[in-house]
């Protein structure tokens, strides 16, 4: 079958991407603006032999997702800010117990009920630090309907590979927008499978994952008879061990390092017109669409403006920001929150360039016109043509 373009909504693309990635379990709770993901999967999953459950709340949803993943299925849930907040404890459980799963957060204005139908990027720090304690996380930020599809697939791949929850940070705009998408054919995209540990059940307690060899966990109900716990456990045996400070530190550092050690392999950044850029716009998600239009506008007038767009927001794209900081004199960070990522950029830039933040929290997308003004301020002697 030849690839043809279809008109898809961002949330629909997330659902189709999940099925393409091999997800066969969804548990969720209706919440604007993510609900279409549940609606589509309630129809699609049973068709492919999968399971859809509408749970009693978001806490139950992420808990059921953890359970299904432990039983061997690729599993996801989808929600928005208030539900994402409710899920935080179990995201920590998934992180501690190393349970692969995908959480899609279609961001809306907050806090609390906030602006349910309007986009926001207010959850980027919640994605990183929402659950308590030291942990690492992977978060991907789509900026198009196509990326809703491909990054959902990638989220499953990363979650299986690193045995960790992976968060897809969409927003009300991307989620509800419709674009033409050429749906990848089977085989076109990489699909990571879980596999089984290469050892006998009675040897399982004596082997341990290393940073370069993260062992898959056998499913519940197998001869391995695994124990899964949210307590600190001995990394070798899996036995809960809360009395040995060395074991606690070893596990904690391992859980953090198993992501950071692979940062180069995980992090994806799109750089636009950065070769000779004097000014960079650091923009992610839907805001990057406005930023890209501004780069095009500036370049058409011969003004050296580029864009760094993190596709992976967490772990933070330190190497790309380093390169940017060495090259440009100023970085403009437009985002639909107040300074959440610009603080992070400022810390990484560490004084090597000026960081200009621009936040908007009224539920409206940051427009190219707003970003143009910020760019103009960086080139006070340039005579601008309007366009």
């Amino acid at each position, binding site marked *: 079958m030849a690839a043809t373009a279809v008109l898809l909504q961002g949330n629909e693309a997330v659902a189709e991407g999940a099925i393409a990635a091999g997800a*066969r*379990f969804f*548990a969720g709770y209706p919440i604007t603006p993510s609900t279409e993901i549940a609606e589509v999967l309630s*129809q699609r999953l*049973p*068709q492919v*032999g*999968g*399971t859809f*459950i509408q*749970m*009693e*709340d978001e*806490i*139950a*949803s992420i*808990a*059921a*997702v*953890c*359970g*299904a*993943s*432990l*039983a*061997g*299925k690729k*599993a996801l849930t989808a929600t928005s800010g208030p539900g994402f907040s409710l899920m935080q*404890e*179990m995201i920590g*459980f998934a992180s501690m117990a190393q349970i692969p799963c995908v959480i899609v957060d279609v961001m809306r204005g907050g806090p609390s009920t906030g602006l349910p139908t309007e986009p926001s990027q207010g959850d980027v720090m919640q994605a990183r630090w929402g659950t308590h304690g030291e942990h690492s996380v992977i978060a991907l930020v789509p900026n198009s309907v196509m990326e809703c599809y491909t990054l959902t697939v990638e989220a499953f791949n990363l979650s299986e590979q690193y045995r960790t929850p992976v968060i897809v940070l969409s927003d009300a705009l991307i989620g509800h927008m419709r674009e033409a998408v050429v749906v990848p054919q089977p085989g076109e995209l990489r699909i990571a499978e879980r596999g089984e540990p290469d050892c006998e059940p009675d040897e399982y307690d004596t082997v341990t994952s290393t940073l370069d060899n993260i062992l898959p966990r056998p*499913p*519940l*109900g*197998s*001869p*391995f*008879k*695994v*124990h*899964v*716990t*949210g*307590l600190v456990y001995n990394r070798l045996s899996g*036995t*809960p061990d809360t009395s040995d400070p060395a074991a606690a530190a070893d596990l904690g550092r391992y859980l953090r390092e198993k992501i950071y050690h692979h940062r180069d392999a995980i992090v994806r950044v799109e750089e636009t017109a950065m070769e000779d850029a004097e000014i960079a716009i650091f923009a992610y998600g839907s805001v990057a669409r406005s930023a890209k239009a501004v780069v095009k506008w500036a370049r058409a007038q011969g003004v050296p403006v580029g864009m760094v767009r993190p596709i992976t927001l967490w772990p933070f794209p330190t190497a790309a920001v380093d390169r940017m900081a060495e090259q440009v004199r100023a970085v403009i960070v437009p985002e639909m929150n107040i300074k959440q990522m610009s603080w992070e950029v400022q810390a990484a830039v560490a004084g090597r360039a000026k960081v200009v933040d621009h936040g908007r929290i009224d539920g409206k997308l940051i427009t190219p016109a707003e970003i143009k003004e910020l760019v103009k301020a960086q080139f006070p002697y340039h005579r601008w043509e309007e366009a």
Partner: protein
Amino acid sequence: MTALVDEQRLEESPKGDYQLPKVKPHTTAEIKAHLRSAKTLWCPGCSNGTITRALIDAILGLGLDPEKVVVVAGIGCSGRISAYLDYSTVHTAHGRALAVATGVKAADPSLHVIVTMGDGDSSAIGGNHLIHAARRNIDVTALVFNNSIYGMTGGQMSPTTHLGDKSTTSVYGNVEPAFDLCELAHAAGATYVARGTSWAYQQLVSVIAGGLGHKGFSMVEAMAICPVYYGRFNLTSDPAEFLRIQKEHAVPANKFDEGESRVRDHYPVGLLHHTERDEFVASLAKVRTRAQEATRG
């Protein structure tokens, strides 16, 4: 303990339509073969060990394949059972065991999924999951260790602490009435509801085995004793005396007068409710068939 075992009472359903399995007790060696460790952190006199043994006895009695048994536990004293049992085990977050178990069972219906929870786990922080698991009639067995108090955190009142009882957070006497967990589960739609006690071991094994054999949501409330906190604050810190009190207050279901007061520990034991209706995971399988037929059509 001999005298107590002799007085064991095997109850039939109040309606006489469901015969509980009669399980022959297994030897300590047979029981220990299902334990990763026989060392526990439970206090001396705690009945959690008795209930754990009863669970293993029931699993052995029904001949369940240990490799297909999954125990999903909550947090608290009872939650620690997950580390001791030699099955696939999950020690989840406080209150979330039933929700995790819902995912496990739906993802792999071939598994025997047993959920162990405390009274706080199942009726306070996880109360919502209890009523919805019962409503769905998902084929898991919830075994509630009810010691009427939060033990792991040092003796605070729970939703099953009786009116007037003392705890570290109800030093002037509890002003909240207690939940009857069996009535709650029944009202929410559980298709098998039973209660046992740590005093009547053989009956406890039977009601757990009945739950494990039942197709649908089964809840077994195991009345536990906590001599260290609940007993010391309210009844007695002597475990043997506490068991005798439990024996006096537990009334066989078929002799229990509905009109009787349930003040404090006066409660019916045995099989309290049994019925059959569509099971959730089986219904999900039918949804798949319908969806696939619609796609083909």
